[in-house]
């Protein structure tokens, strides 16, 4: 069954995000640092009247932190709002979620978040679960 997915660029790769998880897409302004918090937490940002926790997705995926990323996907996990930084946004379109396929093993960082693939014009794109990238929620990220 086709479902709406948001195609974004994350750490140089295209990923598909279930649109049910996406509340909005914004450009993050000034960020308030949170000393002592996990390195995956970039800080706090005001999104209109809401305060969101900005997550450095690169760092959460175990990659080098992306200092200049500004664009973020807002998601809602367990009563809190998070802004997950992404490099760029490509597209929103309906896709069908397919299994990864036999024998395909993702490397450690992506393995947790990967849910399957969607196919865009023959190109396979990894579908990810945003909640798995949220520190303090995902069991392996602290």
């Amino acid at each position, binding site marked *: 069954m086709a479902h709406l997915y948001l195609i974004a660029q994350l750490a140089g790769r295209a990923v598909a995000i279930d649109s049910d998880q996406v509340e909005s897409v914004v450009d993050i302004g000034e960020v*308030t640092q949170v000393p002592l918090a996990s390195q995956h937490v970039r800080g706090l940002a005001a999104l209109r009247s809401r305060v969101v926790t900005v997550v450095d997705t690169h760092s959460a995926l175990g990659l080098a932190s992306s200092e200049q990323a500004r664009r973020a996907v807002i998601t809602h996990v367990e009563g809190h709002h998070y802004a997950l930084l992404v490099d760029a946004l490509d597209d929103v379109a309906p896709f069908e979620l397919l299994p990864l396929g036999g024998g395909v093993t993702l490397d450690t960082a992506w393995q947790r978040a990967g849910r399957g693939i969607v196919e865009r014009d023959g190109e396979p794109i990894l579908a990810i679960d945003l909640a798995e990238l949220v520190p303090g929620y995902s069991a392996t990220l602290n």
Partner: protein
Amino acid sequence: MDDLIQEFIAETRETLEALSGEIVAWEAHPEDRARLDAIFRFVHTVKGSCGFLDLPRLGRLSHAAEDVLAQVREGGRAPDRPLVNAVLAVVDRIGELVEAIDSGTSLPDHGDELLIAALAEGAEEIAQATLPGLQRAPARSVRLGVDLLDRMMSGMSDMVLARNELARRLRGGDIDPTIEAALERLSLTVGEMRDTVTRTRMQKIDALFSALPRMVRDTAAGLNKSVLLHIEGSDVELDREMIEMMRDPLVHIIRNSIDHGIEAPAERRAAGKRESGRLTVSARQSGNQIIIEIADDGRGIDTGKLIQKLVANGRDEARLRALSERGKLDLVFEPGLSSKDEVSEVSGRGVGMDIVRASIEQIGGRVDLDSQPGKGLRLAIHVPLTLSIISAIVVGVGNQRFAISRQAIEEIVTERSEAIRLDVLGGTPIATVRDRRMPLIDLSALLGIARQDKREGQMLAIVSVGEGSYALAVDTVLDNEELVIKPASPAVMTTGVYAGQTLPDSGLPMLMLDCAGMANVAGLDFNRSAHRDYEEEVVVEEAPGLPALMFCDLDGVRRAVPLAAVDRVEQVEGHSVRFAAGRFRVTIDGRILPLAAQGEIEGRDRLNVLRLKDGANEVSYAIDEALDIILLPEDIVPAREPGPIAGVALIDGEQVELLDILWVFDEHADRDADEVAPLCLIAGDKDGWMASFVRPLLETAGYRVVTQLPPGETPAVVLSADAAPAELAATAPVVRLRSRRAASGAGDDSVYRYDRAGLLSALEARMAGKGR
């Protein structure tokens, strides 16, 4: 109670409106089960509320309709036309009665019996008769979903941000004064709106407490017990949602207290307690929390019995017995437990303390127990303030700002002050503030923030965290703001040093520091040093001099007042000071306090006021401004005449007058006839002479005067015209009055009845004699 009735009216009205469609539909298709259920639920709800609200007429009507509808639901009766009509007539009458209650008019009740009779099987079909002359009172309140309030709140915050943005852009260039004035007005309105909107979410905890007296009365009466309820702190404000969440746990705890805690009157008598139990429910704000305390003077928790019960349920006895006292008490929260032998009607409903605790923990709170077997149970519910507005101090470290709850801060001093000393003991920094030694936490080091400049002049906030205090070094103290604190995400909270997050007017999120959490993270341990602290304090007391607050008085003179007498210094608006009932009085925190001053009070916009307390009495004293805390030297030159000034002391080479606290209290404290006043019994006053002439004299002298002894009290002194009855003379000293001027002999210790001074001194002398 009125609130409950209003709520009932609003609810019934709303359901009726929603139901009107259903009723019409049911009339057309009486066999429609869903419609029938809706109407049944309505009358059932009305019946339930009526029993509680004591509305017998509505109760009777709804009860009758419920019975009939129940029969229809069970298939006992067919919903034929007469029945449908009769039910609809009852529903209409319920609506009319509700309107009548709301508008305060009365409705003739002769029709009710007819309506009820029409419900019976085989009754005549009745004609729908609406009563004329009914006026619907205009509704003064609307019911809103919290969702809508939330949206309003977030819209409001957006508006504030937009205003700030606009102001920032305008500041850039030259602007027309008229635009500036318009912006000013906008800012003002936005500010006011924000306050109002914020307040829509807040509610006084009174909303939770107001239903308690009735509930306690009913519960106690149902158990044949008598309970005196005392409520404190009704004006503490809490988030609406929080109040709703607290309602059930609170009701349950209070029911438990009355049912299980407070003993039956006979048992209480046997235990030497007053027959009626005492139940105190109080709310207060403490740091980042609201504490709701429920204390009774009942039998407390019998941990032995608890353990027996759990063992009977199949638990390992040895393990339970091995628990600490605290651990045993906590067994109350085990599921499936009723500490009473028989399950009673009141609290034995299968809802245990485990559910209560779970629902409090769900809103981020906790429950503390303090049980004294035989004496009572004190149960404290701590709920976080995170949803509420709290007054906070904004501090700066490096280029970051943090909020600290104002409640937690004892005082703020600058490091440069002479009264402050910073040292390093081993590797641990400590601060000494006016001979008080305490650990020092450097916020920049704790959080790993680089300080902006290394110049001297940090500020120290003295923070109190329950068990002790510590000094928190920050770069700057910026502001004092009212903030709406919300819980931060788990990733932020796991650091343990934050209490929540907030969005101040600047539009940049800010974190609120958790003072107890910081002490934890910094590894401060107050328990270990508590004992030594005490010894240290004793030494401190021997230090020469008494700490005093130096201030500039209204007449421009520098004066000092002993610090111990000052409860706090507060700023009040000029208009809260009035010359009323013969003296200046000031309104603070919804109370009227006598206001003493030396100098001109009137004509000021704002006043600084010292609140002086001596235990029972409170007097305020208007000053110009507080200057410093000083140590009074031992040598004080006494004043020549008694008056507001006790004397003068030399401080830093300057003469400083010392305020005479005793004089201020004597002159200004409101005298009230409370229980502390000695009781004077007038006995043997046959002609009423003493009651009419002596009584006023005694009352102005501070006695409570009675002519009949209230049960359970003993007089401090008895005033009598002739020899007092022997049983009184045994319990209290007696002063006799004589009507002749001369004493009848050497052994006559009576007082001539027109000798005012003699009478008062005789009363005092006898009372003092008894005390010895």
